[in-house]
Structure formats: structure tokens, C-alpha cells
């Protein structure tokens, strides 16, 4: 075998364990879900094999699923914007601080050491009727009765921001770290104020990180189902909750498969748009 051919094969040999894992653990199960989505639920709860478009027609034309899907995208979008507004200043502060960056980054990563469910439930002890905030306000005489702060859409968004903020901060931080600070100095030496130098130099250069963080927050936010379950009221649901209900409560695996693929496709389109204009390299930097 020639050296060229051996060199050409080498990357594939090195990649084969990863490709095998992705194939077996992602592609093959995904194909099962695709096949399942064309089956039907029988009256007894079992599945009827075949090629039926019923689940897809229902998922695509039923206004109920459209409403929940749009609501899910709306909640994910609001969460992403809030994460950007809160995360950028934090990332900027960490990136520009001198000497204690590692401690600040460590502090930011600390919540990841605690289960996501526990972190979400912690809001009940903070915002609940007998939670810290209501108890404090009542003790101070500011209010006479507890404020109703939980079990609504705002609480769901709060829980999601709490969960997703570190992803945004990390991505923006990585982006800001890569910007040569001499550029800001050059801008100010040419007469720009610090604010102008930020707006015209730093912010545009950090946009790829902001976009990568936004994509991560949006995709993870749109796919969540624990947060509305714990912090939402009776009406609050996201699309993943419907997938859960179809598969677990209604035993309708075929419809659940179609719904989960629909969500995957919608989010896949967003990732494809991101990749088309910004590329996945920035995302890899943030995750790395």
C-alpha cells in the first residue's frame, strides 16, 4: 500500500470508534424512531406495523401541536435573549478581570455539580408561598400575603435561564478571550470613547461567541421538559412534554416518535442556518 493511500485511510481508522459509536447510539436508534413514526397505536395500546402517514398528518396539521411548538420556540427565544443580556456582562467581567479568572470560571461552573432537577426545584424554596423571598417580604412588612411567583410561564423562563446561563457565559467568554485588547486601545487612542470602542470593536468581534451561546441556549431550552413540569402551572407545557405524554402516558409510541422527529427537524433547521452563516467551529470552541 502506498504511503499516500495509507495516509488517506489513517483519519478514517482513527475516526472509526467515534463513527461507530455515533452510528450505533444515534443513527440506528434514530432510524428506529423514523420507522416507528409510520406505525399506528392499536386500540389495546400495542403498535400496528405498516406505513401510515396518520401521525405525520396529525403532527403537521393539528393546531394543538402547532400552538405548543410555537409556544416552545417563543419560550426558548425569550430565554435565549435573557441569557444573552445577563450572560454578556458576566462574561465580559470575567474576560477582562486580572488574576482571578480561574476562580470566577470555577464559581460559574459550580451549579453543574448539582443535579439540574434539584437546581430547578430550589426555586420553590425561594419563590414559593413560604419561600425565602415571600417570608422575607412579609417579615419586613412589605406584603401581607405571599405573592404568587411560581407555577406560571415566567417561572418556567426563570428556571430555564438559571439552567442555561453558564452555556452563554462560557461561549461569550471564549470569544472575548480571543480578542486582542490592543484593538480596543487602538480605538480609544484614535478618539473613541470606551463605550464606542466596545460597540464598534469588541461587540462585533464577540458576536460569533454570542451566536454560539444563543444557539446552545435555544436548542437546549426548546428541548427541555423538566422545567415546565416542576415550575409550570396546569397549562404550561413545552413540546417535549407532549412527546413524553404521547410515549409514556398515552402509550402512543408512533405518535410520540413523529412528534419528537418534528421537534428534531425544527431545531435541525436552526442549527443548519447557524452552520451556513457562522460555522460550527465557534460552537466547538465554546464547548471546549
Amino acid at each position, binding site marked *: 500500500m502506498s504511503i499516500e493511500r495509507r495516509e488517506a485511510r489513517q483519519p478514517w481508522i482513527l475516526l472509526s470508534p467515534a463513527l461507530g459509536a455515533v452510528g450505533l447510539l444515534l443513527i440506528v436508534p434514530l432510524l428506529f424512531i423514523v420507522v416507528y413514526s409510520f406505525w399506528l*397505536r392499536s*386500540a*389495546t*395500546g*400495542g403498535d400496528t406495523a405498516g406505513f401510515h402517514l396518520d401521525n405525520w398528518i396529525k403532527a403537521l396539521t393539528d393546531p*394543538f401541536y402547532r*400552538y*405548543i411548538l410555537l409556544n416552545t420556540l417563543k419560550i426558548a427565544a425569550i430565554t435565549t435573549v435573557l441569557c444573552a443580556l445577563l450572560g454578556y456582562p458576566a462574561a465580559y467581567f470575567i474576560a477582562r478581570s486580572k488574576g482571578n479568572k480561574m476562580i470566577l470560571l470555577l464559581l460559574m461552573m459550580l451549579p453543574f455539580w448539582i443535579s439540574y432537577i434539584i437546581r430547578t426545584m430550589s426555586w*420553590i424554596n425561594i419563590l*414559593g*408561598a*413560604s419561600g425565602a423571598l415571600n417570608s422575607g417580604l412579609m417579615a419586613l412588612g412589605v406584603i401581607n400575603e405571599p405573592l*404568587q411567583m*411560581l*407555577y406560571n410561564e415566567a417561572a418556567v423562563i426563570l428556571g430555564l435561564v438559571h439552567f442555561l446561563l453558564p452555556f452563554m457565559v462560557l461561549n461569550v467568554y471564549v470569544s472575548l478571550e480571543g480578542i486582542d485588547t490592543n484593538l480596543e486601545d487602538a480605538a480609544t487612542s484614535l478618539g473613541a470613547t470606551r463605550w464606542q470602542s466596545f460597540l464598534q470593536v469588541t461587540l462585533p468581534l464577540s458576536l460569533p461567541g454570542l451566536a454560539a451561546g444563543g444557539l446552545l441556549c435555544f436548542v437546549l431550552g426548546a428541548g427541555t421538559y423538566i422545567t415546565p*413540569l416542576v415550575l409550570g*402551572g*396546569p*397549562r404550561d*407545557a413545552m413540546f417535549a412534554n*407532549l412527546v413524553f*405524554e404521547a*410515549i*409514556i*402516558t*398515552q*402509550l*402512543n409510541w408512533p405518535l410520540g416518535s413523529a412528534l419528537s422527529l418534528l421537534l428534531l427537524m425544527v431545531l435541525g433547521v436552526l442549527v443548519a442556518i447557524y452552520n451556513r452563516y457562522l460555522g460550527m467551529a465557534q460552537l466547538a470552541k465554546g464547548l471546549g
Partner: protein
Amino acid sequence: MDNTTRYNRLLERFRNGDLDRRNFLGLIGAAGAAYGLQTPFARTALAQDVQQVRFDGWGGVVSEAFRKHAFDPYTAATGINVVDGTFSGGDEYLAQVRSSQEGEYNIAHLSGVFDYARYVNLDLTTKLNIANIPNMDLVMDALTDAYRRVTPDYLSAVPYNYGTTGLAYNRKYISDEEMKEKGAKILIDEAYKDKIGGWSDWRTRIWYGALQTGQDPNNITDIEAVWDAIRSHRDLALKYWGSGAELMSLLAEEEIYVTEGWSGRIAALQEQGHDIGYYDPPNGFGWQECLFVIKGSPVEACEELLNFMLAPETSIAVAEGQNYPPALDGTKVDLGSKIPTLPAYDPSGTLEALTFADPAYWNGNEAEWSETFSRVQRGF
């Protein structure tokens, strides 16, 4: 020789240098592949030695009582280990069983006769030889008959305990008299807006919707009225709870003042000193739980374990731990001092005071009602 011993011997050979790393890893990989390949066909090996039985239940104090009073004595008597698993909900567990290989799951502590019927419909049953379970003589006939109506020729489960889903209320804000006067309609009383809770289970919502509209839950004639009642409840409720722990937390923290609740969980709250009342309205939701043997399980070993679990000392210990009365007939067995005080306990052994869900009726409507409830819950 069991697989653990085989692995330990192989590991020792590798550490002693008798086996190189390549061969060691190759043999481990081959063993894994062999296990993966043989599992689908292992179901035909009916003559295999039974070394373990898997039990899945609700965990907590119940598991502890089972371990102490049933599993350990059973292992000592038979040499068969009991692997103890837990689940958080019957629907979730059924999804696991459906996606597993036959024989992987053996005995489950299931809720409701409709769960029994669902397993029957999905062809997940086993025919038990009741003669191998002498303690079945102590069980109330009323509970066993409910399963016999689903499978007249055989049983795939033994009854284990029962309870009710009644109305739980904070006595600081709602008196016993008000509760008795309003009954199920208190859950759609605007005076308690944002202080009302409810289980997110579609059956319970429809059952209470039927009671609120004056209908028989086992023969609903005006389902649209029921959906309207569910909509009213949804708009007044602060939160649908999804687990017993959440129910207890919402009541104990005074996030809600009234909800339906599981009798055992409310008894636990009362034991903790919370002033929570419990009321079973007329036609309140009665249910029973069973120990179900799943298709593909080693039947004789499971029957013997069921007999250990039904023994009075085990049944009573579990019942006192979870606050649900056991399936044992109080007229045949001395149930001690605590059980007769539990909510829903029936000293007559007939259970005539409780209304149970008709499995054929509820399972026949499951597909339509569960999906419609999902929509109604979200404002449709």
C-alpha cells in the same frame, strides 16, 4: 459458575501475567457480544437454573419492609437473590417493560385493575398456580375477584394493598363541615382560586369531573360536561402535581389548600403533625395495587416469593410503612393496632364502601380520553 466468578478468574489471570491485555480485552468483548446475542433466545431456555428474581416497586419504606421481611428470608430459604428496583410511575414502568427482553422484569407492584388489564392487553401475563401461594387464602375475595373479571381463567397477579384518592384539605382554611357540604365541587370553587391543586393523571381528572357534574364515573353519559368541569378546575388550580412527594410538599408548604390526594400520603402528612383533613366523597376513587408477574419470568420462583410477600408479618409491615391497608382480610388475620386507623380501611373485608374503576370501561376510553385531556390541560 456465575458470571462474576468467571470475570474475577479472568481478571486474576490477566493480573498474574498469564493473559496478555489484548486477549483479556478480546475475551471481555466476546463475553459482552455473546450476552447481547444470547438474550433474545434465552427465553426458550426454560430449564435454566433460577439464580435471581427482579422486583420493581415504589421504593422508600416499602422497599425496606420488603427487603427485611420478604426478600432476605426468601433468599435464605431458596438461595435465589431478589434484585430490588424502583420506578416513579406505572406508565413509565410499562414503557420500560415494553422495550425490554422477556424475563428481564419479573414482579412489579402495580396500581389499579386497569394497569392489570393493560398488561393483559399487551400480552405480558403469566398464569400463576395459586396452589403454590397458600397465603392467598388470607386475601380478601373482593380484591381477587376484580382481577378475575379481567382474566376469568387465570391470575397473573396477587392483590397486595388498596387505598383511595380522596379530597385532602388544610383545616386551617377549610372546615370539615364545608368539605362535607361541597364534596368534589370544592375543587371548582372560585373562592379557592390559585389555592387548588390536582393530580395530572387523566383518569383522576375525569373521575372527579364526573363527580363534579353528578355523574357515575364508571358510566359517564355527558363527557362534554366533564371536560368543562376539568377546564374550570384547570383555570382555578395553581398546579397539577405529578408525584406523592410533590403532593405532600404543596400541602405542607400551604401552596395549596385543597386537592385530591392519595390516602396513604395524606395519612403520612397527618403523622407528621400537619392539620390536613381527608374526605372520601360519595363515589370517591378507590383503587387497589397488586404484585404482577410479568411474562417470561421464572413462575415457580415468583410464586414462592409472592407467598413470602403476602405473609401477614410482611404485609402488615409494608402496610404500616406506606399507610395503605393490606389486601389481607381483617376478619381472618389480626392486622394489629395501626392498620384499622388508616384512611380507606374496610374492616368488613368486602370493600363494598369503595368504588373502583371498571377496567373495561376506562381502558376502552383510554386512547381518546388521555389525548383529549392533554389538550384540555393546555387550554384547548
